């Protein structure tokens, strides 16, 4: 049973009073606009995007380079601000949160996985992993125990004391994944998580994330170019030129609970 429908052109989801998010949605975004001003040009990276993700869903955002995938991820996760539209994250209006509260929310409820790992090179694996916990105010001993457990989850317990430079690309990405899940997040954002890996390692990493998604119920939003990765997600959202141009549900993976699209319009497309 799919709850997703394509919105018809010209029917803006932003007309009228702001709609409330669906109770099952962990992310509920309407009419997201993001413009970059380069000084000489203005580039509209997102042109009125509506987007929703259900708790426990694993969604892949795909599209050609420069279509706005990473911008969408950054905007939804609160790493970047938007110029228009509303984003509800875990039932909270992101625009109403101060930078401080948004940061705290990220620390407690989100995990991030990046293409180039983005581990701190001067810290060991376990120190990298425990950092979000320390930020959240967890006691150092408890943080260390949880970090080691997270590393064990990604099968890197033996590498806990090693620095990133001493680890392979796949191992580094596992550390990043361990860091993203150590604070028991509601959602993990992954920007090209396998982009820097060979196909075998990429498959391993995808297996790991899918496993965490299915067994622990972690919500994942992935940005990827890799059709193979997309095919293993619950849903693929396709973007082009700052708008969502389509979505599909791969057949390979079992369906999870679906979320109704933001009212009055349904997700998946930009306004233009």
């Amino acid at each position: 049973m799919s709850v997703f429908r394509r919105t018809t052109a010209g029917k803006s989801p932003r007309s009228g009073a702001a709609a409330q998010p669906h109770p099952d949605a962990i992310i509920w975004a309407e009419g997201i606009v993001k413009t970059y001003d380069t000084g000489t040009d203005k580039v509209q990276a997102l042109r009125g995007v509506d987007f929703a993700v259900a708790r426990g869903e694993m969604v892949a955002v795909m599209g050609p380079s420069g279509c706005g995938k990473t911008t969408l991820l950054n905007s939804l996760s609160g790493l970047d601000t938007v110029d228009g539209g509303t984003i509800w994250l875990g039932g909270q209006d992101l625009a109403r949160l101060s930078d401080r509260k948004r940061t705290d929310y990220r620390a407690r409820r989100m995990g991030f996985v990046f293409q180039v790992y983005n581990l701190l090179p001067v810290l060991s694996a376990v120190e990298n992993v425990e950092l979000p916990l320390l930020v959240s105010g967890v006691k150092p001993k408890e943080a260390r125990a949880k970090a080691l457990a997270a590393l064990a989850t990604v099968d890197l317990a033996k590498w806990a004391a090693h620095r990133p430079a001493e680890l392979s690309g796949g191992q580094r990405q596992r550390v990043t994944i361990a860091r993203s899940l150590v604070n028991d997040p509601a959602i993990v954002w992954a920007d090209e998580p396998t982009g820097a890996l060979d196909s075998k390692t990429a498959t391993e990493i995808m297996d790991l994330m899918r496993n965490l998604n299915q067994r622990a119920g972690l919500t994942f939003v992935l940005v990827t170019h890799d059709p193979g990765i997309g095919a293993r997600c619950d849903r693929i959202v396709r973007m082009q030129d700052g708008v969502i141009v389509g979505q599909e549900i791969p057949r390979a993976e079992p369906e999870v609970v679906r979320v109704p699209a933001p009212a009055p319009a349904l997700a998946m497309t930009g306004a233009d």
Partner: protein
Amino acid sequence: MNEVFGLPMSGIMATLIALLSLCLLSVAWVAWRRPVIFKLGVRNIPRRRAQTALIVVGLMLSTLIISTALGVGDTLDYSATSDTYRQLGRVDAVVVQSRSPEADLYAALDDTFGADALAVVERATAGIPEVDGLLPILDARVPVRHDSAGQGEPTAILTGIDPARLDAFGGLRGTDGNAVDLAAFAVNEVAISEEAAKELDAAAGDTVTAFFANKPLPLTVAAVVEDSTLAGHRETAVGLVMPLAQMQALTGQPDTVSMIAVSGAGGVRDAADGSESAVAALRSALAGQNLGVDPIKADMVEQAEGIAALFTGLFLVLGLFSIAAGVLLIVLIFTMLAAERRSEMGMARAVGTQRKQLIQQFVAEGSGYALLSGLVGAALGVGAAFGIAAGLRALFGDFLAIEPHVEPRSLVVAYCLGVVITFLAVVGSSWKISRLNVVAAVRDIPDVATGHRRKRTLVWGALLLGLGGLLAIQGAGAGVAFPFYAGMSLLPFGIALPLRFFGVASRPVFSAAGLYLLALWMLPQNAMNALVGELDGEIEMFFLSGIFMVVGATMVILQNTDLLLAGVSRLGGLFKGSLPAVRTAVAYPGAARGRTGLTIAMFSLIVFSLVMVATMNHNYTALYLGDEATAGWDVRADASNANPLADFRGDLAAQGVAAGEIAAVGVVASPGLFGSEVRLAGAPDWKNVDLRGMDPAFLDGSEFAFLSRAVGYADDAAVVAALRADPTLAVIDASALDGGGGFEEGSDDRFVLSGVGWDDETFAPRRVELARADGGISAVTIVGVIDEKVGALAGLFTARDTVAAVAPDPALISYYVRLADPDRADAVAQEIEAALLQNGVEGVSLRGEVEDQQRQSSGFLYLVQGFMGLGLLVGVAAVGVIAFRSVVERRQQIGVLRAIGYRRGLVSLSFLIETAFIVGMGVLSGTILGVVLARNLFTADDAADGAGFSVPWPVIATILVATVAIALVMTWVPSRQAARIAPAEALRYE
């Protein structure tokens, strides 16, 4: 200023211009032959303006320090010589009564001789074309009172000059610039010097009263004239001038003169240049006439230049720490620039760029920075020199009119030297950073060691071992500290490098080497003396010790950073909220050891030098302000021979002054105001020393302390008992020892008690001959050297009767007074002076005098500290460069931190903690090293025997807090910038 370290400035300038030209030619060659490489280098300069500004600040430090030091020298030189020229005018030399043709004006100041000597001198100068004028002068030291204004001066020079001969000397000029016709003066009319007018509050038409031979001389002020020798103005006295004949008549000294001034052909300044041959000819012509010539202007100019050169040398040596720190900063800056461009450089090498072309590229860029920063440094150096000049004026303005002045030549020297130092540091850094592994650079991963490098390590080890051994042996053999300690300090590196070659871990090897260096330099002086004997060393040892101690401490810190950081991290755990910031802050310094080490070393060097000077200043000030300083006396009242006192206590009692307050009075007679002629028995030349004749009361009442005693005297009391019993025995103050002369050190006239060292507890009694006024010779035997701590007792002290035989009519009688209440010293001194003004008595509080001297000395050292504090700019620039670079380098990591929940404040705090750790380590090590070395040096000084060593914590705390605070402020700007980066933007950054 014409000389620095004995080298002529013109020669230094020519050499440096040649060196700078070589540097610039090499860059010009690159620009001509490799224009693309040159452009690649220089185009980097305007790319990041804030960074370029910081680099220019960092690179200008050497030029700034050198320019400041030379500027201070120029200022002192110019001020002192200007003062000399202004005072002496066209008086180039003076002829005075003297047994030796080489006369000393000050030794003969109170002597008079027959005016017929003028004819003798005229005949002698007839054949000397360089002499164009002679002027007979009669001086008398008198007190002066201006009753209607209620002002008085205990010491003034009433001088008489011959108006008929005045034209050759430029005449007298009024303060309004008009000529004053002295010949037209009526009887009892005088012109007074500008300073006298000020002190006496007198003007033309007023009547002042001088006292001569206890008789009042009412004098009418006919004019106020410029301060000059002709107007009677001296360094320590105001002047009044009248026609010679009237002066002779008024003082009852017909046909008598004190000196004959000689004017050389030429102007005020250039006549002195040609006076040497004229003086020699005149001395030769006057041989056997009991007259001597003192080339007073040339001597004073030479002395001024000597003092200026001494100060310049001192400032340059002390500035070496800042220059060394500046060189480290240059290396740091270029290392960081190279790190920034590592991938770029790797790719350039990969596509065929030669290593030397990378060097050329960096050198081209560095030369641009160096040329620019040299200009800024030289200009700021002028500002700093003017600032120091203002400080000197505040301290010494009473003695010398300080006029800020910087010679263009000094600026050229500072600019060239600063740019050449910077250029060499840039070339060295470029050579180092060009040695990159192409693959590692392209992939931006750490370099790997190669076998080739390891062999070089072994070669370096052998070289250092050999060089260190040779230097140590040579130094120990010659008894010279510099090569010995330099050699001993190189040895551990000669051992450590081979150990590393053979695979021994870095931490134990370099930690041990660092600890060895610290032990070598921090071992108490006595212990080192016991091991290797006494070695000779001067101020250069201060620099050497600082460099090696800082190197040792930095090595120990760097090799054990993880332990220190773990401690900081645990400390951070106490503040739960800031723990994440601490965690990231302490991680970076350990990961970038080279950068961390350079920064720690820079701060350590600067703080070490500041703390060391501050601690020594503090302890020596306390030492010389101790109870011993006044020798048990409270007030000294000096009476000149012009108006002798019949009965000091009785005269005071008659005036109702200090009655019942005086506990004791001792009397000291001095034959000359500016010393007397003495010489060691057997020595050919007469020298100058302050000869003092003590009466028994002074001997009994003085609290002597001796630095060393003649053999046979068990203790200080034995020396005093011997002085009491034998009038041919004497004691002398420690400034007579070799090296104790201060600014007079090296002067030909200074008496030196050679053969007695500062560390000698005993010495063989030394026989000294005293030149008697009647032409004969008396002799005394020195049996004690008075401790420096007893600042009130300066000169050669013997029995008053002995001095009376030398000079029956002493120029000065000093009454030393002990008061029942020492706290009343200042008040009683003033009361005595007021009561005995007509006798020209000057009263001084001895403690106040000692404190004034110490205040000047300390004030000067504070100025030196301020100058050395310029080095802090190095640290500040370093912190700024590192912080700005760190923000750029870690931009993506900052994005990650923000993504995982670091608040802005936490990111900022992380940078601040990182800076605080690095700067704190440098400051801590510099402080410990400075205090320990100061303690070793102070306690090793015999003068400090029994004195407690103390640390000036408030001063040190101020230095430390200011250093850390400035560093944090410098980090705060980029850390805020880092914190404000939008996480998404930071994550995009590559």
